[in-house]
């Protein structure tokens, strides 16, 4: 009848929906209940911004579990992150048996790995700002850091954490900025300012103006005296001097050659007159040389006097020059 048809249809509908419901419940959550998990705890000393309950836990990039709770340890000022790690991802770990055996097996494995440097670290997940807990060999092998007191009291399995790369960069940056901020910019600027002020006042001093004028006059005078000096050491005189000197040297040379010849041809009795001649010639040369040297000395003396004169009064150069110009005219 109609009623039976109603019931049949309703029955079909309810069965279908319930099957679907059970399937969805299973896939969307209840299947989680049959997954064997181990609990682990880690503590971060940094902000866990971006990490939330349900965030992933990855072991060397393999998703092995999720964050189940995040709390603050008020005594140590640490962020405690509870994780549930699915044991099926660790093939070597004993998955069968009861919870205690599984836990122990997992702990043994993890402790071994932790000695080799296994640590927790916060990592960014994509560009969204979300984070996940990464388990990897971030540290050098060695001793395992001790768990915070509160975690130890709880008896939870502790995996130590290292600060994230981001955190390291942040620390370095913070330090640099800190140091910068610690520099006493005010006193530094004060000093610079006072130096500038001093300089300014010196420049404004009138004495500086006059001495500058003196300097410029001095410079001009010096230039003129240099001109005079060059005239005194005129080319002709110098050439004459040098030619006299040369001549003397040639004479001396000739004398030396004569002397040699004499000594070679010498017969002791007849050589006495030759020796006398030679000596007379040498005396002559020596006199000439002395005259030359005297003249050179006179020249040097006159230069010295000139320099002295310039030193005493630079204006003399101008005056002398003008006088000499006038006399030339």
């Amino acid at each position, binding site marked *: 009848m109609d009623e039976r048809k109603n*019931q049949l249809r309703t029955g*079909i509908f*309810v069965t279908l*929906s*319930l099957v679907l419901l059970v399937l969805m*419940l299973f*896939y969307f*959550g*209840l299947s989680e209940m049959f997954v064997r998990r181990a609990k682990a705890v880690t503590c971060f000393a940094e902000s866990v911004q971006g990490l939330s309950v349900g965030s992933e836990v990855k072991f060397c990039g393999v998703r092995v579990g999720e964050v189940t709770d995040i709390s603050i340890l008020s005594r140590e000022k640490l962020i405690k992150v509870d994780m549930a790690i699915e044991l099926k991802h660790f093939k070597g770990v004993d998955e069968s048996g009861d919870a205690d055996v599984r836990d122990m097996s997992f702990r043994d494995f993890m402790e071994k790995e932790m000695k080799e440097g296994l640590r927790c670290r916060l990592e960014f997940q994509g560009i969204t700002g979300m984070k996940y807990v990464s388990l990897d060999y971030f540290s050098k092998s060695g001793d395992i850091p001790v768990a915070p007191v509160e975690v130890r009291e709880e008896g939870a399995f502790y995996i130590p954490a290292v600060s994230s790369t981001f955190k390291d960069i942040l620390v370095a940056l913070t330090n640099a900025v800190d140091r910068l901020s610690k520099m006493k910019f005010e006193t530094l600027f004060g000093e610079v300012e006072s130096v500038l002020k001093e300089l300014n006042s010196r420049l404004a001093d009138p004495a500086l103006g006059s001495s500058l004028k003196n300097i410029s006059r001095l410079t001009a005078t010096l230039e003129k005296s240099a001109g005079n000096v060059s005239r005194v050491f005129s080319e002709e005189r110098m050439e004459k001097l040098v030619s006299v000197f040369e001549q003397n040297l040639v004479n001396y040379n000739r004398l030396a050659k004569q002397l040699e010849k004499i000594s070679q041809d010498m017969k002791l009795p007849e050589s006495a007159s030759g020796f006398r001649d030679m000596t007379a010639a040498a005396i002559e040369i020596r006199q000439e040389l002395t005259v030359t040297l005297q003249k050179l000395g006179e020249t040097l003396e006159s230069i010295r006097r000139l320099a002295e004169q310039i030193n005493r009064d630079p204006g003399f150069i101008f005056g002398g020059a003008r006088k000499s110009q006038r006399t030339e005219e």
Partner: protein
Amino acid sequence: MKKIFSQCGEFMIFLGAVAGAVPELFRRRTRRWREFFYYAELCGFQSLPIVIMLCFLMGVVLGIQGAIQMRKVGTEIFMVDLIGFSVLKELGPLMVAIIATGRAGSAFAAEIGTMKVNEELSALRTMGSDPAGFLVLPKLCAMVISLPLLSVCGDAAGILGGMCVGVSVLEIPVAAYWLRTVDVLNIAALTGGLVKSAVYAILITLAGCYCGFTSSGDAQGVGRGATRAVVMSIFLVVISDAVMTLLFSFIGW
């Protein structure tokens, strides 16, 4: 203003009558399996094809719209989250509620209005029955059971629709889509949607029956009552959706 108050008062009286009749559910004699099956079939099985179709299309539409936006930032895989959560939490229950409003809510109003015209309500009362309990409770039970179940079917259809778009348009592998779906969706989203669905069922039934009871006793009044039932149901559904979403967000659903 006075009218609104008096209407609220009327509704409260009606609500009281229905609530007062609830204990009848626990008396063997007054369990009305027949009516229950009739309405369960009406708003359950008969609505199933349209619910599945609409929810599937909703998933497809949402998938395409999501894909266009997600592709811009290269986060196509998050489309799975978008479709999964919006279908489970909002669209599934809402689509089912709207279909139920059109099918069941207006039907309830028309049925009770007609009974009023035919003096069947008076007859019921003179036979010592409580019309509120007699007429409302079987509908209420049928709706409260069949709407969440319909929502489950709608959810599945919606996710399937999204999957079709994801696989065909965005070329996400079926396995990847499925794994992501299973991974991100949780029981809280599903049950949250089902709870909403049950609340919608209650509201639609109450609005439909109330409009039937208060319709004026003529043929025109029946039509007006049915229209009013639809408007009132959708209004109540949307308001309650907002309130529930807010409340669920407090407890983290």
